[in-house]
């Protein structure tokens, strides 16, 4: 990215100053080297977001930002409904409520090691993964609507988990005001065979080892100690969410003129929050969020069953579940005044700091766990939300490493078999139906997650708690 177009705020924040039609400035997080390496498309897309009406405060790009569609991946923007603010289907994206759930296992590496290959096989057999895979659960129309209203709470009521799981799930596992009637029949049909499926691409289920603890006090509050084994699940709302995105992007793109909206990019398709279309989308998107929460809950259940067979001493309990492709109504203090805002996070994680009333009592003193997925080889992080993140970026943090290489480049440069063998030499077991898929997800196709979280910490977006190293990776 061309630094000449940015104003440096401090060592880790760079501003796109307001000019011409921009309504607010843009702020990009990163050190100079990261900004130089960042695609110019991030600048272009973030600047496009600043042109939308009803924005409150700057729009932000997290340190893992890269070229997305409409919003950059890693983009955060908040809108005020009373100031003609909009909700954007493009700002949420196709994979509504894609997120990460991390579970404790109460096991250590030594207990896992003798059975890790067998456990990898069991998880790979039990959890539908990759193109063409199908879940065992079939929902009637009424059951589908109940799932879309109830989310993970519905899944627990059906026997896929325990009520304690909900205490550690964002919104206690159920997003209010979902409207199944705003979800098309096509979207529901697309979901019919996909409940409890992991998907493909960058989605995964990993067994991970706590390799390093940075903040012992917060780690203790989260129940993490070095050498613990945890499980992380990264997936979203599956076909239902993809079709909701498809349906509403089209409808919003076509209706933009009626609302007097001049879209700098059709992918920023949006509608006024208070319009009928805006409200319908919010209802459908919330149904998509519940679908994602239910899906991760069902996968949790399948994971527990596989562990139970091979490691009966394991106890899989929730660390946390948080999404990173969402639009949520949140209250934030802007220039001393508390406001209700529609916060879009596209490839960015909510990161509430200590004291947030939205956190359950066990987390309120230390802040929300922020779950950062890395790549197969480089590991993941557990971060904690900070008080400072509220003013820095509306309590938001990065969501992953972010790609540094296109899929096309990756498959030209790497071979799936070599990657699987190379990781096996390091004790990491990979199970995936697609060799080319593994090549496209090669560790070196991603940015250095260590640098991304370092910057997130130095910029006060979140605090490092623990680093997780992959042991087993089930990849779509």
């Amino acid at each position, binding site marked *: 990215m061309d630094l000449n177009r940015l104003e440096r705020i401090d060592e880790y924040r760079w501003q796109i100053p307001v000019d011409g039609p921009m309504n607010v400035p843009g702020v990009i997080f990163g050190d100079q080297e990261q900004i130089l390496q960042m*695609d110019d*498309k991030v600048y272009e897309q973030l600047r496009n977001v600043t042109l939308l009406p009803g924005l409150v405060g700057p729009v932000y790009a997290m340190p893992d930002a*890269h*070229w*997305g*569609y*409409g919003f950059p*991946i890693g983009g955060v923007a908040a809108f005020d409904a009373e100031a003609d603010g909009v909700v954007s289907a*493009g700002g949420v*994206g*196709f*994979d509504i409520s894609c997120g990460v759930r991390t579970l404790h296992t109460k096991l250590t590496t030594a207990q896992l090691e003798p059975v890790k290959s067998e456990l990898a096989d069991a998880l790979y057999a039990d959890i539908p993964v*990759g*193109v*063409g*895979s*199908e879940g065992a659960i079939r929902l009637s129309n009424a059951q589908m609507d109940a799932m879309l209203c109830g989310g993970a709470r519905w899944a627990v009521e059906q026997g896929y988990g325990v009520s304690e799981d909900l205490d550690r799930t964002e919104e206690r596992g159920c997003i209010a005001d979902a409207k199944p009637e705003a979800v098309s029949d*096509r979207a529901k*049909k*697309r979901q*019919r*065979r996909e409940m409890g499926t992991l*998907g*493909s*691409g960058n989605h995964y289920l990993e067994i991970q080892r706590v390799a390093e603890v940075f903040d012992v006090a917060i780690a203790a509050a989260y129940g993490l100690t070095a050498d613990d084994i945890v499980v992380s699940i990264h997936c979203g709302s599956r*076909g239902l969410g*993809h*079709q909701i*995105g*498809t349906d509403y*992007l*089209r409808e919003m*793109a*076509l209706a933009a003129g009626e609302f007097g909206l001049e879209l700098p*990019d*059709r*992918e920023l*398709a949006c509608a006024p929050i208070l319009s009928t279309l805006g409200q319908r989308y919010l209802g459908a998107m919330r149904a998509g969020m519940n679908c994602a929460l239910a899906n991760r809950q069902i996968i949790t259940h399948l994971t527990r069953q596989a562990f139970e067979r091979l490691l009966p001493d394991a106890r899989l309990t929730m660390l946390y579940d948080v999404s990173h492709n969402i639009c949520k109504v949140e209250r934030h203090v802007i220039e001393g005044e508390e406001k209700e805002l529609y916060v879009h996070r596209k490839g960015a994680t909510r990161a509430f700091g200590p004291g947030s009333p939205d956190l359950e009592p066990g987390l309120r003193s230390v802040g929300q766990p922020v779950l950062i997925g890395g790549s197969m080889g480089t590991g993941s992080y557990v971060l904690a939300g900070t008080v400072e993140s509220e003013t820095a970026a509306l309590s938001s943090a990065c969501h992953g490493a*972010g*790609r540094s290489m*296109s*899929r*096309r*480049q990756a498959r030209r440069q790497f071979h799936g078999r070599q990657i699987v063998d190379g990781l096996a030499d390091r004790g990491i077991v990979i199970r995936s*139906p*697609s*060799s*080319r*898929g593994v090549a*496209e997800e090669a560790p070196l196709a991603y940015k250095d997650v260590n640098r991304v979280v370092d910057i997130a910490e130095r910029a006060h977006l979140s605090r490092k708690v623990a680093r997780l190293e992959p042991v087993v990776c089930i990849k*779509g």
Partner: protein
Amino acid sequence: MQNPSWSHIEHDADIGLRARAPSRESLFEAMGEALTAVVTDPASVRLERQLDIHCEAPDDALLLVDWLNALIYEMATRRMIFGSWRVKFDGHKLDARVEGETVDRARHRPVVEIKGATYTALSVEQDSSGNWQAQCVVDV
């Protein structure tokens, strides 16, 4: 006039499809082939089943997104992969017959499922020599 061709273009997170063709019909057919190539080698697809697809949109660019999204929907709900595309237009109405088969995970080794076609870097254009070209980024 050139023969229809397609390629995948660089995009940080997702995959860009690009095609060139002597007609709008063959352009949309080539984009259909480029879409299949995201998932598997189009040449590996057997033509065992066929279905008809109909779309209508106010302009060519939106019509291209609708066409790709219709293919993505059929791939997802029928668990199919396509290897033949025959497209006809009546203005901005598209009628197509596509052929393919149910995904065979062992033979196709499908790489990734496609979530949707985006409006990012989207274009459908005819140049001064009469050739058509298009591009579209799909989310995977």
